[in-house]
Structures are given as structure tokens and as C-alpha cells.
């Protein structure tokens, strides 16, 4: 009947904030992606070329972010790192989101033994510290970004699958799913055409967070020497490289740090905005 909660639902004044967040997030990530695709256009120098005469120079007009211990231009390295880190963000999460969504959809839809087994896998994965698992797998496969993608892929899909399975179960309680079955639609049609588009929301929101977390994971692995291969610039590696120069050449760590935080902010803002946009409308 007239079950409209009159108290608060209509009375949240913040509903206009996401627009600002959305724009800010899109601008940050848009520029990041642009930089990632065309670092050569933005970077003033070759990120790899040494300049023995300009080792550890502080920020200047020629080198706005200073130079590193090889005399490489930090600005250019931070810029080229966008290519790798954005790649980390996307590639690390690509398989998990695709495979996880698929498994989650099937498990959520069919339930039964498979769901039981899946439940145990979820338990095992969330019970075991994720980064240790990834480190172990990367150690098996050998360091490098490609192997990091594989390592994360092997366990990361579980989180997506868990999310989507839960959301599928919520959606399946809604009548439109039942309507599809009463209309004699096949399972594939009901899953793909009806349930998934409605269940995918939380996954997209999580995806944004996960991309930011992936950059952090890539950085942590870079710090441990298991991530991006030198001499390629990656923010975590840049920070790790600059670690010994924290007191003498602060610019080596600050700028990559700012880039990580800024990109994280972009994903976070976009995630919030997506969550807001996907909030069910009535």
C-alpha cells in the first residue's frame, strides 16, 4: 500500500554533490588516461635517458620535478609511469571482473553444489592475506607485471564473484526475473539480458576501488621488486628508488606519491559518483 517513508528518503540535500565528484573524477581519470596513451606528447624529456651531469638535481625550470640518481627527468618518469600504472589498474582488474562476474552470475543463479564449493573458495581466499597470496604466486611465476596480472587474476575474481552472486540473489527475488521465467525465457537470456545489467552496479563501484587498490598493490610489489621491470617507470618503483634519497632528494618520492594519491582520488570520486548514479530510481 502506501509504503512511502516520508521521513528522510526525499530529504537528502547532498544529491547534487555527486555531479561535482563525477566531473572531478572524470577530469582526473580522463587526463590520466590521456597521459597514459600519449605520454610522449606530455613528457618534456626521454624518461630513460641518463644525464650524468644532472644527477639528483632539484626541481628547476628544465626539470620541474627534479632528476633522479641517473639524472633522468622525474617529470617525464612520473608521466610515463601513468602508462604503466593505468595499465596496472585496468589489466589487473580485467580478468577478475570478467571471470568473476561470469562465475558469480552462474553461482548466484543456480545455487546448489557449485555454490557450496564456491562458498568454501571464498572463505579460503578471504581468510588468507591477499597480498601474501599474490606475492607467493608472483614468486612462483617470476616477478613482472604480466605475472602480477595472472597472480591477482587467480584470486581477485573471487571478490567480484562474491559481490555479483549476492546481488544476483537480490535481483532474483524481484518479480521481473520471475516474469522472465514465466514467459519461458531461457536461463542465458534471463541471466545476461535481465539479471546481470541490474546486478552489475555494485561490481562497477567495486571495480573503481579495485583499480585504485591495484595501483597500490602494483606499487607494493614494485617496492618488493616483484612488480614492473626496470628501467620502466612505475610509481611504486619510483618511490622505492627514491627511498634512499628521502632526506636529500625529496622530489624523487613526493611527485610519484602525489600521482598515486591523485589517481586514487580520481577512481574514488568516480566510484562514489557511479554508486550514486546506479542507486535504484523509483
Amino acid at each position, binding site marked *: 500500500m502506501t509504503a512511502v*517513508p516520508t*521521513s*528522510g*528518503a526525499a*530529504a*537528502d*540535500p*547532498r544529491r547534487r*554533490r555527486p555531479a561535482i565528484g563525477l566531473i572531478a573524477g572524470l577530469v582526473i581519470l580522463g587526463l590520466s588516461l590521456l597521459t597514459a596513451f600519449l605520454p610522449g606528447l606530455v613528457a618534456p624529456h626521454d624518461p630513460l635517458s641518463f644525464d650524468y651531469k644532472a644527477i639528483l638535481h632539484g626541481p628547476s625550470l628544465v626539470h620541474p620535478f627534479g632528476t633522479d640518481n641517473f639524472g633522468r627527468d622525474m617529470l617525464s618518469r612520473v608521466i610515463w609511469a601513468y602508462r604503466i600504472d593505468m595499465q596496472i589498474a585496468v589489466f589487473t582488474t580485467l580478468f577478475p571482473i570478467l571471470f568473476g562476474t561470469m562465475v558469480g552470475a552462474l553461482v548466484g543463479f543456480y545455487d546448489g553444489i557449485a555454490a557450496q564449493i564456491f562458498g*568454501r*573458495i571464498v*572463505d*579460503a581466499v*578471504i*581468510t*588468507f*592475506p*591477499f*597480498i*601474501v597470496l599474490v*606475492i*607467493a*604466486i608472483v*614468486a*612462483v611465476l*617470476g616477478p613482472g607485471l604480466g605475472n602480477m596480472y595472472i597472480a591477482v587474476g587467480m584470486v581477485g575474481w573471487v571478490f567480484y564473484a562474491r559481490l555479483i552472486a549476492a546481488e544476483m540473489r537480490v535481483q532474483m527475488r524481484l518479480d521481473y526475473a520471475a516474469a522472465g521465467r514465466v514467459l519461458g525465457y531461457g536461463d542465458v537470456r534471463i541471466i545476461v539480458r535481465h539479471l546481470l545489467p541490474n546486478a552489475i552496479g555494485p561490481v562497477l563501484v567495486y571495480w573503481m576501488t579495485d583499480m*585504485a587498490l591495484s*595501483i*597500490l598493490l602494483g*606499487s*607494493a610489489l614494485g*617496492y*618488493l621488486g616483484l612488480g614492473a621491470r626496470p628501467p620502466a617507470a612505475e610509481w*611504486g618503483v619510483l*618511490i*622505492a628508488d627514491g*627511498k634512499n634519497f*628521502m*632526506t636529500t632528494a625529496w622530489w624523487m*618520492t613526493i611527485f610519484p*606519491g602525489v600521482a*598515486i*594519491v*591523485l*589517481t*586514487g*582520488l580520481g577512481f*574514488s570520486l568516480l566510484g562514489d559518483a557511479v554508486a550514486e548514479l546506479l542507486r535504484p530510481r523509483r
Partner: protein
Amino acid sequence: MLSLRDLLNRMLQIIPTLIMIMAAVFIIVRLLPGDPASAILGDRGSAEDVARINTQLGLDQPIPVQFLYFVDRVLHGDLGTSITLGVPVAQLILERLPVTLLLTAMAALLAVVAAIPLAFLAAIRRGRGVDLTIGAFFQVGLSMPVFYTGIVFLTIFGAGLRWFPIGGYGDGLGEHLYHLFLPALTLAFSLSAVLMRNLRASIIDVLNADYVDFARSKGLAPRLVLLRHVLRNALVSTVTLFGLSVGTLVGGAVITETVFAVPGVGRLMIESIYGRDYPVVQGLAMTLAVVVSLVFLLVDIVQAMLDPRVSR
């Protein structure tokens, strides 16, 4: 509240999880390229030395056979002996685990202590300057790599202001707590950010709940409404998230322990993976899984205390 039966039930559910982790870790460590002998001998070992040591360790047997031996020993309460350190794994874990537990517990406590009041403040003043400032501060916490935060904290609070010792663990509980404060703060930074965001959102949700209006309709003081009616309900979902974050916390400890020279299991884990110290890796994995499972159980209990609907 959870009944004893519920508790037994949860504990039963842990068993298959542990078996899976045990098997997975057993296989993963044996898939690692290289072997304990290579790790021990380093560059100067000859092929014969390597073979001899591996035979001594029983690593020349088929993996399923090794697994059966391992399971048998674990069932008899024997986790084996560290290959590199020559110390019983159980003893190593007993030495190192309390450190990590203390570290993560402190981090968790700090995170909660920071997150709850700030989440309240942000939720009540939502959309205003305070809210945005808190949000921005924690955004930094969310996107800073742990090792970077650690180095920054060390430089500022340790070397710069001399408030805290730089790394290490110290002697006695007081010293331990003092030494672990900065690493715990480092770990807490990102966790509190996650908790704060979640709690802020659920407080806003709860503030809109009917029962809050109903409580206000009784003429209760605002403070009472916030503490008794809002906080407890808002904490329910945050406690779940907190439980799920424990794994991440232990993971973060791996790096934090390295930066801060804290002799915990995180560092031991990495060293053992590098050192191909199979028994230690296996023992640690089991222990961590048990610990995390117990934390989940604890979270379940807390949740049942907060929310009577949880127990059936």
C-alpha cells in the same frame, strides 16, 4: 548473542577452509622455482650439494607422498622444523605471531578510535566543510601505498619530532607498544579510511531510519538517540567490513614490518618464501588462516552482540 551451538557451528565451518588453504599453500610452495637447498647454498653451492640437501629434507619424494607426511605431522601437532633457521616452526611462530597480533590489534584499535568519531562528525555535518576535510584526509589514507606512508611517518614522527622510536620492537610490553605505535598508525591510516567511509554512509542511512524518528518521538535527548540508537545500528555493517579487512591488515603488516623492522610473521612469511623454507611457509599460512578465522569468529560474536538478529 551467539549460543554455544552457534559457536561450534562456525568452528566446524572453518575446517574445510583450513584444509583447502593447507593444500593450496603446500602446492604453491612446491611450485616455486628453486628449492630450499638453492636458497641455503646460494651461488657457491654445487649441484651435488643441492641434491644432497634436498634428499635430506625428503624433497626428492613425490609431492602427494610429501603431502601425506605433512598432514600426518600436522595432525600430530608437529609443524616441522625451519629449513634455514633449524628452529621448530611452532617455536618460530610462537615468537613472531604475538608481534604481528599486537601490531594488527593496535592498528585495528587506532583505526576504530579514529574512524568512529570522525565518521559521526562527517555524517552529522554532511556536505559541509568538516565532512569534506575529513573525506579528503582519508582519501589520502586510502591511496597512499603503505610503505610510503610508513617512511613518511618515520621521517616525521620518528626522526623529525623524535616522538617515537624508529623501528624495532623493544623489550617488555610498554616498550613494544611504544615501538609499534608508528607502524600501527601506518596500517591504521588506510583501514580507518575504509571504516570511516563505510560508517559515515551507514550513519547517514540510520539517521534516516524510522526507529530514529520513533526514538526522537519519545522525547529522548539527542545524545542518547545518537549513541544508543544510531551508533549501534550503524556499526553492524562496519563490523562486517572490519572483519573482512583483517586479511588486508595482515597483508599490510608484511610491508609495514619490513619498513619498521618489526619482527612479526609478515616479514617472516616473505623471508620464508624467498628462502624456500617450506615448513615455515606452510606453518605460517595455517596459523594465519586460523588467526583470521578466529577473528571472523570474533567478529561474528561482536556482531551478534550488536545485532540480535544475527543469531538464529
